[in-house]
């Protein structure tokens, strides 16, 4: 991968006493789809707004395409921004919205016909051909999202910041536009930095995923690495696919309220959380004996949710903690569990991880 398009060093932003960004350093690669994941209040939108120039950082530097930009005014940065609510100009048509940047940017020099050609080409690219003359209130939410994207992309910024761009769309549309966003980005070869609060969206859309927590970057990895090896218990909890048991290492096992688990091979922190992924747990009738290298727990069935390709079941431990199990179904019919009945939950010893 070539040199990064955006380097951030030691970026800090406070609001009164609250720290929104705490010493954030990042190197965003060129020609890449980066998703920025974090719970609400983690500072992800603030980070985007500081990069775009809507907010000033208290400390730190930002270098964009090799030049420092912290002191540059917003309109001079050349970084695209797609707003969560789309922020379309309500008094302009679709075409006028898309043409706004080319017509009005400082030092605009393009001729009228050139602008029209580029705008038409961009409208075509995002699939809005035929809607050029419509007002932005006469089109659907998904179409508005495309106008917002086209309006930014037509000015050809090397970096586009997207602030929860799918948040205002319904679930069905979200997955479709998600795929389109990836396709459009690949076609143009620019970098997208996409903020989202949804772990599935972040994993699905990003070539790389940044996890932000309480103003700090806690992980920056490929999606599969992130899913496989979350950097901390908080990241694991946020990914929403790990059962976590708090406790400490004692000898060759991990002691927790839920019981004693043999440690996975490899280095372990002395205390923290023992985690096992929802989809790594097998459910069996209680009588069945677990094999060697297996960890086993007894829990009572509480409820289940059918999601289509898999079944998500909830079991209650003696300690009161709920354990979630995701069973991929394939061709099988969903297993039927008896309410309140005890089952044996088991997983491979090395399938678990201990987080600090």
């Amino acid at each position, binding site marked *: 991968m070539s040199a990064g398009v955006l380097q951030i060093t030691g970026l800090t932003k406070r609001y009164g006493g609250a720290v929104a960004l705490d010493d954030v350093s990042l190197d965003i690669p060129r020609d890449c789809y980066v998703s920025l994941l974090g719970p609400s209040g983690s500072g992800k939108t603030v980070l985007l707004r500081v990069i775009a120039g809507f907010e000033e950082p208290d400390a730190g530097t930002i270098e964009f395409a090799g030049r420092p930009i912290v002191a540059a005014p917003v309109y001079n940065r050349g970084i695209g921004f797609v707003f969560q609510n789309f922020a379309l100009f309500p008094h302009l048509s679709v075409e006028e919205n898309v043409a706004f940047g080319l017509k*009005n940017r400082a030092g605009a020099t393009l001729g009228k016909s050139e602008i029209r050609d580029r705008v038409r080409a961009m409208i075509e690219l995002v699939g809005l051909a035929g809607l050029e003359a419509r007002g932005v209130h006469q089109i659907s939410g998904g179409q508005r999202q495309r106008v917002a994207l086209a309006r930014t992309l037509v000015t050809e910024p090397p970096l586009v910041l997207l602030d929860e761009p799918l948040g205002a769309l319904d679930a069905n549309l979200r997955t479709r536009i998600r795929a389109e966003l990836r396709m459009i980005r690949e076609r143009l070869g620019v970098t997208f930095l996409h903020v989202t609060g949804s772990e599935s969206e972040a994993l699905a859309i990003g070539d790389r995923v940044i996890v932000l927590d309480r103003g700090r970057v806690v992980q920056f990895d490929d999606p599969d690495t992130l899913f496989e090896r979350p950097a901390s218990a908080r990241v694991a909890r946020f990914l929403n696919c790990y059962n976590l048991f708090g406790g400490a290492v004692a000898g060759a096992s991990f002691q927790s309220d839920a019981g004693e688990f043999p440690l996975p091979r490899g280095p372990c922190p002395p205390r923290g959380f023992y985690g096992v992924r929802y989809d790594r747990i097998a459910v069996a009738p209680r009588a069945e004996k677990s094999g060697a290298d297996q960890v086993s727990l007894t829990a009572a069935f509480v409820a289940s949710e059918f999601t289509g390709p898999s079944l998500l079941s909830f079991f209650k431990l003696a300690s009161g903690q709920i354990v979630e199990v995701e069973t991929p179904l394939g061709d099988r019919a969903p297993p039927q569990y008896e309410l309140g009945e005890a089952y044996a939950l088991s997983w491979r010893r090395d399938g678990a991880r201990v987080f600090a």
Partner: protein
Amino acid sequence: MTTAIVSDAIESPAAAAQQTRRRVVYWLIAPGVLWMLIFLVLPMAMMIYVSFWTQTTFKIEPILTTRSWVAFFTSETYLDALWTTIRIWLIVLGATLLVGYPTALFIGLFVRNKTLQTALLVVCVIPFWTSFLIRVLAWRPMLGTEGAVNILLMKAGLISQPIEALLYTDLSVIIGMTQIYCVFMVGPIAFMLSRIDPTIIEAARDLGAGFWRIFRTIILPLSMPGVVVGAIFVSVMVLGEFATSAALSGRKVNLLGNIIVTQVGSLRWSFAAVVGVVLTIIMGAAVSILLRVVDLRREL
């Protein structure tokens, strides 16, 4: 007749509901319509009617004649007053816009705290806590030959002789009216500006537009409905004015409003009615021209 009875008899529940709804609507609009008929439409019709009555020095008779109309359009005094009214109206409209727009821009767009916004708008209407007459008359000690403005300018050494043109001229009437009616311009514009979503301005900045570009392409067009509503308020009030011009011009500036007052005072009803009709026509024209500028139904 028969068909009506038959259709009534086989009325469906949906049609019945519709009928009830319609009846409710009629009841709701009845008071307003009645009020407007008795106190607006009827007097206006009466005014037009009276303007054609025959006026003699001591009495007025319902014998139709165009004499009052001819008198109005052949008298230089009255045509002068017509012209002065239009001139003062346009200047005051321009002045309130010039003073009011930046104020509204500040309150509506630069102040993002809603409480502070409301507080500032309240500050704008503080002059209205005193009576109209006091507000107008207060300009006399301000603008007179020995008034505050002249004293300040002389103390500052900017002038050696007091400026006499400040009071009892067109200028004093314009200053007085601008001050009184400015707030009616500020209010609607500030309201429209405060409804602009701040993120669309951020979006425009991000797309590379500087402040003036954003003002011209985004802020101004989106505030136009406010400008039009404000301009309608100011126009209607200035066109009907008579008190400010009487108090601040020393009776040198005669507006159509002043003429109506004089004519009514001397019981020349039919002539006053002619001026009233002319004034109403000008106001109607002004409002409809302003409404042409922006389609309010679409914008509000």
